[in-house]
C-alpha cells in the first residue's frame, strides 16, 4: 500500500474519533448550561414549522447537512431538543444541503446550454427534497409515524445488544475520555478556568461553540481524507453509472459514493459538471442524487454512538427512514419521479436567458423564506 492512502486512513480515523468527541463535548456543554436555562432556550423553537426552517437555514450557513444532523443528534442526546422538534429540523437540513450544488452550477453560467443542464441537475435535488418534505412532514405531524418507526427500530437495535448502543460500551468510554481530555485541557487555560469558576453559562456557551466548530472541522477533514482515499472508486462508480444509465444501480452508486466520503454535497456537486457537459442525462443523474440522500444519513448514525441517551440513535434513524421512505415512495412511480425533473428543467429554462432569476431563486428559497418563516412561526 502506498504511503498517502495509509496517511488518509489514519487521518480519517483520527477525525472520526474527534468528530465523536465533539458530539460528546456538545452534550457536556448543554448539560453545563443546566436544565432550567435549556428549557427557556428550547421554547424559542416553539413550532415544528420553525424547526423545519431552522434546520434549513442552519444547513445553508454551514453548507453541510451532516454538520446539522450530527449537531441535532448531540442536542437530542443531551435532552436539549425533543424528537417532536428535532425531526422537522432534520427534514430542513435535507432542504438546506441542496444549496451547495446549486451554487456549483453557477460555475457554468457563461455557456447557456451548459448552465441550463447544470442548473437543472442541481435544482432537481431541491425539488425532490421539497417534495419529500411536503409529502411526509404533514403525515409526521398528523400521525408521528417517523417517531414511532424510529423508536421501534432503536429498541430493536438495543435489544440485539449492539456494543455501540450500550451505555458502558468501550466506544462510549473512549469517546468520553477524549471529551474529558479536551475539557481538562481547556480548564488549564486561566481565562477559561476563570469563566468556569465565575460564569458557568458563558463557559457552557464557549464549550458548545467549540463543539460545533470541532464537528465542522472534523467532518471537513473526514470528507477530504475519505475523498482522497476513494477517488478511484468514485470515478469507477460514476463510469459504471454512465454506462448503465439510471435505475436502482445508480441509487446504489449514489449511496456508496456518499457513504464513502460522508457528504451528499460532494456526490451531487460532482454530478453537476457531468450533467452540465451533457454526458450524463438529468434523468440518469436523478437516482444517484437520491442515493446521496440515503448515503448521507450514516453520519448522524455515527454521531449517535457518542451520546448517552437512546434518543440520539432514534433521531439518527429518523433521518434514515425519512430519506429511505421518500425514495421508496417517489422513485418507483414514474409520474411522481418526473415531477422534480420537470420542475427543475422548467426553472432552468427560465433562468438560462435571465440569470438573475437563478440568483433570486437561491436567495428566496434558501435565505429569505426560511428567515421569514422562522420569524412568523415563532
Amino acid at each position, binding site marked *: 500500500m502506498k504511503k498517502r492512502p495509509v496517511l488518509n486512513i489514519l487521518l480519517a480515523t483520527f477525525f472520526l474519533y474527534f468528530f465523536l468527541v465533539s458530539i460528546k463535548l456538545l452534550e457536556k456543554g448543554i448539560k453545563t448550561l443546566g436544565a432550567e436555562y435549556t428549557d427557556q432556550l428550547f421554547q424559542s423553537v416553539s413550532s415544528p414549522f420553525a424547526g423545519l426552517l431552522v434546520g434549513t437555514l442552519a444547513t445553508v450557513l454551514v453548507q453541510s447537512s451532516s454538520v446539522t444532523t450530527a449537531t441535532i443528534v448531540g442536542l437530542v442526546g443531551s435532552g436539549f431538543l425533543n424528537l417532536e422538534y428535532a425531526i422537522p429540523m432534520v427534514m430542513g437540513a435535507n432542504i438546506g444541503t441542496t444549496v451547495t450544488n446549486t451554487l456549483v452550477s453557477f460555475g457554468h453560467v457563461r455557456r447557456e446550454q451548459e448552465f441550463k443542464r447544470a442548473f437543472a441537475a442541481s435544482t432537481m435535488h431541491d425539488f425532490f427534497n421539497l417534495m419529500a418534505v411536503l409529502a411526509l412532514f404533514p403525515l409526521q405531524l398528523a400521525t408521528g409515524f417517523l417517531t414511532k418507526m424510529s423508536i421501534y427500530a432503536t429498541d430493536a437495535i438495543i435489544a440485539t445488544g449492539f456494543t455501540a448502543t450500550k451505555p458502558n460500551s468501550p466506544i462510549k468510554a473512549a469517546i468520553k475520555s477524549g471529551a474529558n481530555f479536551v475539557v481538562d485541557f481547556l480548564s488549564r487555560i486561566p481565562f477559561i478556568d476563570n469563566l468556569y469558576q465565575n460564569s458557568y453559562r458563558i463557559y457552557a456557551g464557549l464549550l458548545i461553540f467549540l463543539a460545533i466548530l470541532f464537528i465542522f472541522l472534523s467532518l471537513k477533514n473526514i470528507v477530504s481524507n475519505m475523498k482522497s482515499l476513494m*477517488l*478511484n*472508486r*468514485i*470515478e*469507477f462508480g*460514476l*463510469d459504471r453509472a*454512465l454506462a448503465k444509465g439510471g435505475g436502482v444501480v445508480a441509487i446504489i452508486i449514489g449511496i456508496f459514493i456518499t457513504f464513502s466520503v460522508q457528504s451528499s454535497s460532494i456526490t451531487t456537486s*460532482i*454530478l*453537476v*459538471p*457531468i450533467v452540465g*457537459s451533457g*454526458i450524463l442525462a438529468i434523468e440518469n443523474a436523478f437516482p444517484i442524487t437520491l442515493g446521496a440522500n440515503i448515503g448521507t444519513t450514516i453520519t448522524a448514525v455515527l454521531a449517535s454512538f457518542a451520546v448517552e441517551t437512546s434518543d440520539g440513535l432514534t433521531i439518527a434513524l429518523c433521518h434514515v427512514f425519512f430519506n429511505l421512505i421518500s425514495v421508496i415512495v417517489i422513485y418507483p412511480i414514474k409520474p411522481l419521479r418526473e415531477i422534480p425533473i420537470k420542475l427543475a428543467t422548467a426553472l432552468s429554462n427560465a433562468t438560462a436567458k435571465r440569470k438573475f432569476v437563478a440568483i433570486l431563486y437561491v436567495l428566496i428559497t434558501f435565505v429569505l423564506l426560511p428567515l421569514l418563516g422562522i420569524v412568523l412561526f415563532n
Partner: protein
Amino acid sequence: MSDYSLDSIDAKLGEMLTNSSHMFDLSMNCLLGDTNLDTVKENLYSTDKTINELHRDVRRELIVHSAVNSRNLDVPLLLAYMTMSKDIERIGDYCKNIFEIAETGNSFAKEAEELDYFISLRDQISGFIVSLQTCLSLDEEDKVQELIASGAEVGKEIDEKITSLLENKLEVKYPVATTLFYRYLKRVNLHIVNAATAIIMPTDQIDYIDE
C-alpha cells in the same frame, strides 16, 4: 489525484492506436497490393466506428475525472489527452480516404518504380504508430523525441514529393490519385507526430514542431 480514469484513458488511447494501425495497414494494402476491396471495406469502416466510440469514451472519462478531481486538477495533462485523442482519431479518417482512392479504381500495385518507395513509406509510418503506442505506455522522453524527429523527416520528404507533383516535375501514372495519396499520408504522419508532441511538450507548443 486519482489514477483510475487516467489509466483507463491511457488504455483507451492504446486501443485507438491498435485500431488505427489496423486501418492503416488495411487501407495501404488495398492501394499497394491486390487485396479485395469488398472483403475489407466493412472491417475498415467498423474499425473507424470503434475508434470514434473510444474517442467519445475518452472525452467522457476526462469530464468525469475533472468533476471528481476538481480541486487538484492537472489541466495541461487533460488538454494533452484531449488533443492526443483527437489526433489519433483523425488517423482513421485519413485511412478511409486512402481506401477511397483505391475504391475509385486506382491501384498502385503495378507502379513498379514508385511502389517500393510507397511500401517503404508504409512501413515507416506503420512503425511510427507502433512507436507512439510504446511512447504512450512507457513515457520515455528520448523515444518520443526520436519519434518526432523521424516523423518530421518523413513529413519533409512527402512535402517535397507533393511539391514536385504540383510543379509537374514528377511523372506518375495517376497524378491526381498520387497527389492525394501523398497528401493523406502526410496527414497521417503529422497526426502521429502531433500526438507524440502532446506527450512531452508544454501545452502551448503541442502540434508546433517547426516553431
